[in-house]
Structures are given as C-alpha cells and as structure tokens.
C-alpha cells in the first residue's frame, strides 16, 4: 500500500475524530479567554451526547439532536457560570462538580437508552467534483459529514471575532484585567456568562456529534475522557482558535496512527503517544519566557468582585 493512502486515510480519520475535540477546544478557549476556567467540559459533552441521542431517537431527526445537544450543553454550562461568576466560588471545584454531575445524570437517565440503534444519523456526504481532486478530495470531500465542515468554518470565524473585533477585545480584556475592563464600563459578569455559554454550547455539540454522527449509539461514559483532552488542547493552543485546530487534528491523527502503526511499534508506546504529546506541550508552554509572551489570560480562574484587587 502506497504512502498516498496512508496520508489520505490518516488525515481523513483525523478530521472525523478531531471534530469533537476541536469544537470543545474552541468553546473552552472562549471561556478561558474571559477568565473562567471550566473543567466541566467532560460533563457538558456527555450531557450533549445523551440529550442529542435521545432527541434524535425520538424525533428521527439527527439535526434536531445536534441542536438540542448544543442547547443542553449551553444550559448545563450556566450552572458553572452561576457558581463561578455570580457566586464567585472556586472555579476548579465548580468545574469538577459539573463533570461529575454530567456523568452521573446522563448515566442515570441514559439507562433505558443503551443498546438502541439510531434510525437516522447525520449523513456522510461526498461532494461531487471536489472529491476527485487528488489528495484533498478523498481527505476533505469524501465521507465526511457537515458538522466536520461546520467546525472548520468556526475556526476562522471565532479567530476573527477574538482578534479583530471589538467583542474580541472586550473578551480578552475581561480575561486579562477585569478591574480595568470594569472601569471602562464593560459588564464583566455578562461577558463571562456569554463566554461560558459559548463553551457549553460547543461542548454540547461535540457530545451530540459523538452520539449522533461519529458512533450513533448511547452508552454511559461514552465521551471517555475527551473533555480532559480538550482542557489540555486549550493550553496547547495558547488560547488561540487557529492553534486549537492544529492541536485537535494533530492529536486525532496520533490517535488514529496509534492503531495503524501497531504491527511495527509497541502498542503500549503508541497508546501513550497522544498523551505524552499533550504533556510535552504543557511543559513547553510553561517555560518562563514563553509563558510571559503567550501565557494564560492573567485573570484566568480568578473570580472578579468590583472594588477588590
């Protein structure tokens, strides 16, 4: 088998598996840019997966499933926004609770839904004409579904908003220095609520993608730690949507290759590879000079109360 097929299948799988990671990462980037650390990604994702699956199953409409997944993910994230922004509670504790709550609730309500095949899933499409382009065709335009493209389109959009618009400046200033932003008349709490909500919507959508498109079935705990990879990818991305895309697809490609390369490389080593990669990146971005230049938003995980510094 030629190296061309290797490249094509690896990248094509990288897009399919990387999409939920990318959606989650984009959302978490926005939340953290506004200064709210949300460790509840796993919980929001699994709630999205559960509600998306049940909706798609009952209505027979997978798109409605994705929509409901996004709404439920968003609604679920508001719990975190309420505790961490309004009540100014510890964000780490609140986020962790959100994850546990999501896993528990979805597991409990999901009981009767296990083992049911979904009648209709998000269709895979092959773009006529474009799929004939060598390399790019089979990677991008054959057998992917619309959510994959949607996630890709979100990247420039969210990047543009964050770096080239007034809204983006507002979000970033709230995450860097909420006191100054407040003195300039910005409603810090409202900005943070919005950003956490965006994070929840995208995480919910990622969950919906998993249960309605990627592997159309509901099983308890089916996100299997993806939410935690999202947290690591957010740091890898230097809180930048463009690098977030790079990280998500790179991680996904490594994950796929960990099965492809098994005959030649020790499977245990391969299994550890994506995670070792995440740790290496964390070490890299934690280095002094780099941290100053592209470090975390200065007010990340710090609750803001007017008049307190």
């Amino acid at each position: 088998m030629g190296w061309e097929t290797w490249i094509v299948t690896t990248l094509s799988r990288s897009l399919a598996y990387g999409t939920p990671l990318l959606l989650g990462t984009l959302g978490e980037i926005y939340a953290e840019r506004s200064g709210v650390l949300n460790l509840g990604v796993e919980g929001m994702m699994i709630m999205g997966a559960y509600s998306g699956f049940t909706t798609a199953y009952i209505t027979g409409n997978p798109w409605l499933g994705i929509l409901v997944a996004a709404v439920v993910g968003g609604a679920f994230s508001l719990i975190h926004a309420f505790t961490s922004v309004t009540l100014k509670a510890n964000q780490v504790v609140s986020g962790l609770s959100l994850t546990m709550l999501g896993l528990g609730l979805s597991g409990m309500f999901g009981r009767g839904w296990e083992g049911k095949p979904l009648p209709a899933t998000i269709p895979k499409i092959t773009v006529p004409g474009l799929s004939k382009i060598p390399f790019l065709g089979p990677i991008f335009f054959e057998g992917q579904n619309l959510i994959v493209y949607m996630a890709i389109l979100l990247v420039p959009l969210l990047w543009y908003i964050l770096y080239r618009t007034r809204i983006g400046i507002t979000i970033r200033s709230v995450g860097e220095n909420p006191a100054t932003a407040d003195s300039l008349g910005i409603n810090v709490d409202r900005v943070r609520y919005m950003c956490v909500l965006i994070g929840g919507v995208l995480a919910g959508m990622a969950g919906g993608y998993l249960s309605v498109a990627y592997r159309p079935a509901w099983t308890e705990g089916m996100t299997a730690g993806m939410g935690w990879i999202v947290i690591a990818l957010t740091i890898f991305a230097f809180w930048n949507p463009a690098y977030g895309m790079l990280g998500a697809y790179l991680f996904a490609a490594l994950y796929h290759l960990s099965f492809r390369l098994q005959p030649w490389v020790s499977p245990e080593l391969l299994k550890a590879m994506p995670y070792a990669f995440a740790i290496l990146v964390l070490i890299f971005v934690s280095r002094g000079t780099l941290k100053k230049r592209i470090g975390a938003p200065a007010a990340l995980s710090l609750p803001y109360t007017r008049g307190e510094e």
Partner: protein
Amino acid sequence: MFTQRNKVLLVTVLVVAVIFSFASVMMAKEYVPGTPLKVGFIYVGPIGDLGWSYAHDEARRICEDTFPWLETVYVESVAEGSEGLYIDKLIMEEGCDVVLTTSFGFMDGTLISAQKYPDKIFAHCSGFKRNPNMMTYMADFYQIYYLNGLIAGALTKTNKTAYIGAFPIPEVKRHMGAFAVGVRETTPKAEVLVRWIYEWFSPTAAKEAAEALIADGCDVFAFTEDSPTIVQVAGEKGLPSFGHYSPMYDFSPEYVVSGQIAHWEAVYLDFLAKVYAGAYTAHNLADVDYWWLLKEKAVEMGAKPGMLMNPAYEDELKEKKVNDPVLGMISVYDLVMKRLEQMSDPSMVFDPFNGPIFDRDGNLKVPEGLRMSVFELTTIDWAVDGIVGPWE
C-alpha cells in the same frame, strides 16, 4: 491525656465496635438448603454495555424469574481490585449467601474474601483459583469463533480478515486462534490482522482500530470489545461482521453475518439449583469448574438468538465450496452446520484445536491426533498460524 468525658466516649465507641463485629460474625451463618437463597453479583462494567456485563445481568434476571426461592442483588462498574469492599457489603449488609464475581481481575480479591467468609459460597468467572467454598466457571466462545472464522474465510475478498482484541490475554488469544483456524480452513491463504485496544470497553478506540484495519484492506470483522461499535463501523462501509457477546444484529441488520451469544443462565441455573438442593455447599467446591461450551448450551452462535446466520449471506456461503479431507467437497454453509452439530454433540467429536496446529513461526504446537486440554486452552499464549500483527 484524655479528659474523663473523652475516655467515656472512647470506651463507648470501642464497646459498640466490638459488639458490632461479633454481631456480624454471628450473622454470617451458613446457608441451609431449601430455604430462600440470596445471591449477589459483582460486574466489572455497566450493565448497559451490551457486552459482557449485560449478558451476565440478563442471566441474573432469568434466574430470578425461574426460581421463586431466589433473590438477587448486583453491583455494577466495580473496578478490579476493589471487589473485596463490595463483597463485604453484599455479605454484611445485604446478607447474601452466594457471591458471584464476573471478571478475571476479581480473582485474587474473591479468593481472599472466600477465605475470610468460609461459610459463604463464592463463584468466580474466567479464573483458575478455587477454594472449598469457591468454584470457577466460564461459558467459552472459542468454538463459535472458529465457526465464525469458517464464514469469514469464505466471505473475504481481500484475504484479510480483521480481529480487534481488548487485551492480549489467553482468553482473547484463544478466541483469535480459533477464529484463525476457521478462516484458514475455508481460505488457506487468508490472514487475520490483529489490533489491540487495551480496554474492555471503549467505543472510540474500537472505532479507530476498525477504521485502521479497513484502511489496511480488511473486509470481514470479528472482535472482543463490549460495545456494538465495530459492527456499526463495518456496516457503514458495507462490510460483514460478527456480533460479540450479545445480539448485535439490530445495529447493522444487513451486515451482521453471525456472532457469539452467551447464555450465562445455563451455568447459573445449574449451579444455583445445586446450591439450593444442598449438592454444592461451602465445603465441596474446590474441584468444581464449569467450563461450558456449545454442548452445554452455555453459548450460542448467531446474529441474534435463533438466527444462526443472516439469511442475506446464505447463498454466498452455499456456493463457496471447500475440500475437506474427511467430508469431501462441501459448501461452507454445510461445513458450518456439520461442525456445529459435531461440537454440540455430547461426545464432542470435533474441536477447532484438534491437531495438527502450527503457530505462526511454523512450530508444531498440537500434533496430529491430539487435542488441546482445557488447561492448555486457558493458558494459550502463542499465535496460531495466519495471525498477523502485534501479540503482546
């Protein structure tokens, strides 16, 4: 050091603790045959996994419906290593007379508990350690994997069949080996490409492993993982697959050819009835090992119960002929039926691990005229000829 009040408190606590520990020992009475029996099940996965734990739980419910004198309780998603705590809970709090632990990794913990509660009855699934009050049992699939292999060999066009394994342990290696024996019997040139996912349950890993094997050219799929993911992935691509552990036909009705279905209730009904009758007690289980196969009806081949083979594939399997040294020219369909009949026969006139069998390095592992013993089967660590891929 202590104030008077604290001393009183301390003594009270100690006295209460002592009373309770005695009470619990006194409570641990031996089961009297013929009285209502309470049985606790410990599962390694969620009962909704549609795989291993699901199959055990189905059997539990059948037992409860069958025996009016039986009461059951269960604990699911128990991490291997923490079984001791749950056994304590089932015996001390729930008052179970019998505890069944259903994962290989529960073996040592179950043995420790069996020694701790010598009057209670224990049963451990898939292990090899026993005690006067602890038996072992297994409903094994290797014969069915062999039958699935016969079909897979007939259906492959690329001569590459796929097997995605959970962990490289003897149980899975035995099933792969049996599958490979079957594949090679119908298509001697065909290979079994192996990938490991190192999880009993992981839909994403199963999906990507299956996609990797599809990219490598595999076109028929068998697996050991506790979700219907691989059946779904293969079905999406229009490739045949074999369901594992529970009926997975509904997940891909056109492409699930057959599969392995467990009937743990066969073992459980037999064992619990004997406990109730007083034939099995907490003192005579040291040599009791249920190693149940097709002939005991503990396992069934099928896409779903009652559907031995998906009708969509029948014609293709009837057309494909192989030359068997004993049976002569025979269609794969008839061969599967013949082998099924032979293995379901109480005298088990045929077994997939009848010699001669070579490992993949060309060494003769089972000489002609011999058959692998149960011990050899449960400890197998070599790769049957035809298996390609990592092995550790």
